[in-house]
C-alpha cells in the first residue's frame, strides 16, 4: 500500500510521520500532485486556518490531485483536525472560501457559551453508527483523544457522524462518508490510543478486518 502524507505547508507533519515510523509503516510525505494522485491511501493532516489550508492546497495543485486519488480512484483518506474541516463545503473561519465539499456540511465556531477556548486537552469520544471498529478500546471503553481547536464540523447528514464529544455541548468529533474519514482530534498526539486508531484506519484501507 502506497501511503502519502500530504504536505501543504501547514501543520505538524513531523509528528504524523513520527507515528508512522513508530508503527513501522512506510509513508511518503509529499506536496507533489503527481505523487498524491497516484497514492492508494491519503493522510491529510493540518493545523491552522481554513482559508490558508484551501489556498495552499489549491496553489500546489493538490485539490485536483486529491480529487483524482480519493474521488476517482477510491483511495481511503484520513483527515486530521484542519484536514477534517477542509472536507466540508465551507467554514465560518473563512467566509466565501469553498472547502473540498466531500462531506456536505459547514464548519462553525464553538458558541460563546462554551467553556474556555480553544478546546484543548484529552476528551472522551463516543462512536456512533456502524463503523465503530475504527476506534480502539482501553479497559472495554473508547479512550480519550487529544483535541486542540475552536471550530467544529456540522455535517448536513446525520448519517455521516462517526463520533461525538462533549465540550459545553455535544459536537461532531469524527465523520465518515464511504472511505473518507475525518477526525477533529489528533491521533498522532493521543498516545497509544491514537496510534491504534491510525493502525486500524490503515488496516481498513487495505481491506482488512479489525479483529
Amino acid at each position, binding site marked *: 500500500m502506497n501511503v502519502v502524507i500530504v504536505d501543504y505547508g501547514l501543520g505538524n507533519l513531523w509528528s504524523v510521520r513520527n507515528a508512522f515510523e513508530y508503527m513501522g509503516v512506510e509513508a511518503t510525505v509529499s506536496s507533489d500532485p503527481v505523487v498524491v494522485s497516484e497514492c492508494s491511501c491519503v493522510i491529510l493532516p493540518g493545523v491552522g486556518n481554513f482559508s490558508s489550508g484551501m489556498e495552499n492546497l489549491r496553489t500546489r495543485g493538490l485539490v485536483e490531485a486529491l480529487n483524482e486519488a480519493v474521488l476517482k480512484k477510491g483511495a481511503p483518506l484520513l483527515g486530521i483536525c484542519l484536514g477534517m474541516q477542509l472536507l466540508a463545503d465551507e467554514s465560518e473561519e473563512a467566509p466565501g472560501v469553498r472547502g473540498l465539499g466531500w462531506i456536505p456540511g459547514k464548519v462553525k465556531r464553538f458558541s460563546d457559551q462554551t467553556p474556555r477556548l480553544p478546546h484543548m*486537552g484529552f476528551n472522551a469520544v463516543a462512536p456512533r453508527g456502524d463503523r465503530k471498529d475504527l476506534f480502539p478500546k482501553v479497559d472495554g471503553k473508547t479512550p480519550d483523544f487529544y483535541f486542540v481547536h475552536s471550530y467544529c464540523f456540522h455535517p448536513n447528514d446525520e448519517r455521516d457522524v462517526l463520533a461525538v464529544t462533549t465540550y459545553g455541548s455535544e459536537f461532531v468529533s469524527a465523520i465518515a462518508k464511504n472511505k473518507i474519514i475525518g477526525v477533529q482530534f489528533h491521533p498522532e498526539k493521543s498516545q497509544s490510543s491514537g496510534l491504534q486508531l491510525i493502525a486500524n484506519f490503515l488496516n481498513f484501507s487495505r481491506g482488512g478486518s479489525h479483529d
Partner: protein
Amino acid sequence: MIKARMCFSLLYADGNFHLSRNFKLQEVGNFDWLMENYEFESIARSIDELLILNVGRGELDWCEFLKNVKKVVKHCFMPVAVGGGIRKRDQARLLFESGADKLVLNSAFFKDPQLVKCLVGLYGTQSIVASLDFRRNGAGDAEIFIDGGRECTKVQLAEAVSAVACAGAGEIYLTSIDRDGTGMGYDLAALERAFKSCALPIIASGGADTPDQLAEGILSGYASGVSTAHLFNFMGNGLKDARNEIVKKTIILPRWDFKDLKFFKI
C-alpha cells in the same frame, strides 16, 4: 468531559537536563543519560503533555538545543511545548520543524510584543503558551519576573495574566519561583488569582513534588493542567504511579495502554 492534564517539564541548559530549586539549577545529565537512567520513555508514556524549557543563563547554542528537542520528541506521542530564549521568528519556525507543537514565550511578552503578535498571527493562538514566573514580594504580592527569574518587571500577576491573554496567548504556564523545587506544593492563592483574571487554560508549576500535590492543583479547580519538573521523584515508573494515585482521588485522567497496541502488516 475534558480531562485535566498531567504535564512534565524538562529543564534544558547547555546540552544537559537539570533539576531546579528557586530557579537555581543542578545538572542531571544529557539526553542519553536521561533515557538510560530516568527511563524517559516511561515518563513520555505517562503524561498528557510535555514541556521542554531552555533555562540556560548564557547564549543558547540553538543547533544543540534543536538537536536535543528532536531526540526527545522522537519518543513523544502527546503534545510538546518548547521554549525559553525565543527572540526571532526563525527560531520559532525551527522549533516547529524540530517537532514542537506549541511555543513557550516568556520575556518576549514584556520585551518584544511585536514578535508575540507575529507568532500569534503565523501559528495561531493555540500554539502560544505564555510562561509567567512570579515571586512574592515583602508585602506578599505576586510580581512577575523575566529572564529566568533575574529581572523583576514590577508587573502584578493579575495584570500580567490579562495582558498576555490580550496579546494572544492560548494558555498560561504559571510558575512560582519561591516554591520551585521546594516540595511545598503549588501557590494555590496565586493560581486562583490568575484563573479569575483571564479565560485561558492555566498549567500550574512550581512546588509540586508528590502525587498528592499534583492532585491538589487539579482539585483546586483553577488549573487545566499541573506540572512537575522533578526528575528525581518521578523517575522510572514514578509518573505512572503518580497517575494511579491521582485517579484514586476521584480525579478522572485519560487512559491508554501501550501494551494493547496491535499493528497490522501493511
